[in-house]
């Protein structure tokens, strides 16, 4: 039975306005669905409601706007359907553009930050280990829990905004220490010294999602120098093929100094040894293009590219002259773009034919000019969702292979 504080009850009863009461009804009703005994405070929220899914998306947020409601905690926004910095890139209808733009604007009127990124963990201020937060967007959730050690359940549309408006969430799921213990162990093969590490991390993530579902896994055997970008790729892929919201990388992530720490000393239900052959099989299945197939475009940056990923891209471009022989899109946040503009990297890449896309992502909205044909990516998440969303055929390879293929104008793999 859910026990509310006096303040919770006052919010529910409308003492803080109609918008807060609506938000609190949603929080308490979902608390009952989760069988939570109480609500707790969160220190920040990340909202995935900016992506337009139809009139219901707008109806919901406008209820808060018209009642003059504001978010109660610092709140960042996930991607929208439009690139507000480069609006000319949108290739959808005008009514859709207007509704999508209004949805993004309405969230700003509630006091949310104009971050429009699926990688809020790449912003300057990010949650600390142990902090209770309410984050939506599957890859952001898994990164916050796993890599930052912050605590969030899998929030999604509507509940994320309700949590931001009330500052309260059900005390359940991954907010609770005991539920963060790894119950399965994944033994990764040693791919530290291989080329194309980005592909192996994503392939391992896709395999993890398929095997773990919603269970928390501890991964052993990852390279000692595993980077945040690599953990980002792994987590995003795992949250695409499964409902993974937390994994532990033993020796790497904050709650997994040792395997014992990751499992909270509970014997695992299952241990799975993964081989390089298993990962190669994941990679083969994800790729739907033959070597030599004509390439319509390359899309990188799902989740949003970091500064270090842009630096690596520029290094790869330095091996070639002129512009790629197909469209070349990289998704990132406006904050990363501004950093790249300050360092000159944005101008340098633009001059080489790279189209940087901000505020949105190429797999959820019509931006890529030519989708009849093959689009190549190194993102497990993009490869997983894009075929159904925007009707493309996916070639899947490392960043190195993507760049090489773009300059060849056709799909090529290094092996």
């Amino acid at each position, binding site marked *: 039975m859910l026990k509310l504080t006096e303040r919770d009850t006052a919010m529910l009863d409308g003492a803080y306005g109609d918008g807060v009461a609506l938000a609190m009804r*949603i929080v308490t009703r979902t608390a*009952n669905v989760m069988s939570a005994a109480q609500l707790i405070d969160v220190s920040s929220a990340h909202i*995935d409601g900016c*992506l337009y899914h*139809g*009139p*219901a998306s707008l109806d919901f947020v406008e209820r808060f706007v018209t009642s003059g409601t504001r978010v109660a905690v610092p709140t960042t926004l996930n991607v929208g359907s439009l690139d507000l910095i480069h609006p000319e890139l949108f290739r959808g209808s005008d009514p859709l553009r207007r509704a999508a733009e209004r949805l993004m604007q309405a969230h700003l009127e509630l006091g949310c930050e104009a971050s429009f990124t699926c990688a809020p963990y790449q912003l300057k201020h990010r949650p600390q280990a142990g902090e209770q937060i309410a984050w939506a967007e599957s890859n952001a959730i898994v990164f916050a829990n796993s890599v930052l050690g912050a605590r969030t359940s899998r929030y*999604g549309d509507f509940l994320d905004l309700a949590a931001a408006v009330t500052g309260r969430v059900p005390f359940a799921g991954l907010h609770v220490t005991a539920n963060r213990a790894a119950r399965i162990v994944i033994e990764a093969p040693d791919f530290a010294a291989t080329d194309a590490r980005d592909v192996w991390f994503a392939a391992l993530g896709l395999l993890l999602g398929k095997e773990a579902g919603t269970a928390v896994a501890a991964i052993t055997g990852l390279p000692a120098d595993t980077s945040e970008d690599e953990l980002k790729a792994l987590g995003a892929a795992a949250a695409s093929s499964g409902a993974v919201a937390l994994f532990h990388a033993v020796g790497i992530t904050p709650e997994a100094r040792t395997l014992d720490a990751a499992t909270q000393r509970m014997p695992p239900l299952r241990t799975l040894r993964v081989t390089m052959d298993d990962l190669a099989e994941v990679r083969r299945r994800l790729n739907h293009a033959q070597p030599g197939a004509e390439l319509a475009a390359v899309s990188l940056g799902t989740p949003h590219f970091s500064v270090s990923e842009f630096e690596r891209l520029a290094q790869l471009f330095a091996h070639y002259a002129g512009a790629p022989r197909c469209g070349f899109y990289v998704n990132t946040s406006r904050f990363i773009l501004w950093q790249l503009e300050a360092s000159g990297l944005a101008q340098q890449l633009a001059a080489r034919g790279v189209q940087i896309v901000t505020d949105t992502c190429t797999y959820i909205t019509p931006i890529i000019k030519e989708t009849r044909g093959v689009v190549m990516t190194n993102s497990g998440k993009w490869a997983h969702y894009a075929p159904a969303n925007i009707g493309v055929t996916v070639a899947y390879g490392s960043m190195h292979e993507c760049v090489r293929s773009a300059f060849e104008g056709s799909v090529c793999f290094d092996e």
Partner: protein
Amino acid sequence: MNRPGSSSRTPRATREFAAHTLAAGSAGGAPLAVEPLSFWGGYDTERGLIVEPAHPQCGLSLAGKVMLMPRAKGSSSSSSVLAEAIRNGTGPAAIVLCEADLIVAIGVIVAQELYSVNVPLVTVDVDLFAALCAAGVPLYVDAPGDGAQATVRIDQAAQ
């Protein structure tokens, strides 16, 4: 908690079973058993059709049906897509799950709040779920209040 056949004091033509309420409402319709579906990317709310190519029920409509789904899957954006389908009249009349699911629950709860359309959402145990899937006749879901006991009625008379 739900023992099939445990409460058959109703007339012979109908059978009534206990279920657990996740979201209140009262509605009935033809049953449609579906494999786990992600509404986002899997359901076209304009046309009211399952569109995930690899889904066994691809091409079928949920509109007005009692949706029988063992569990949900996929993106948290599914809450929005379900709420939009309910708004648009292309969503299910009622939903019966085996495993409680937050994403589905939120879609239903928000549609109630915004449009006053009450799509009852209940969970039942695996045995009753199988019996409901096999019934092949209209089902009625009556869930009077959040968290309270609900009933699912199989209307044998319609057979």
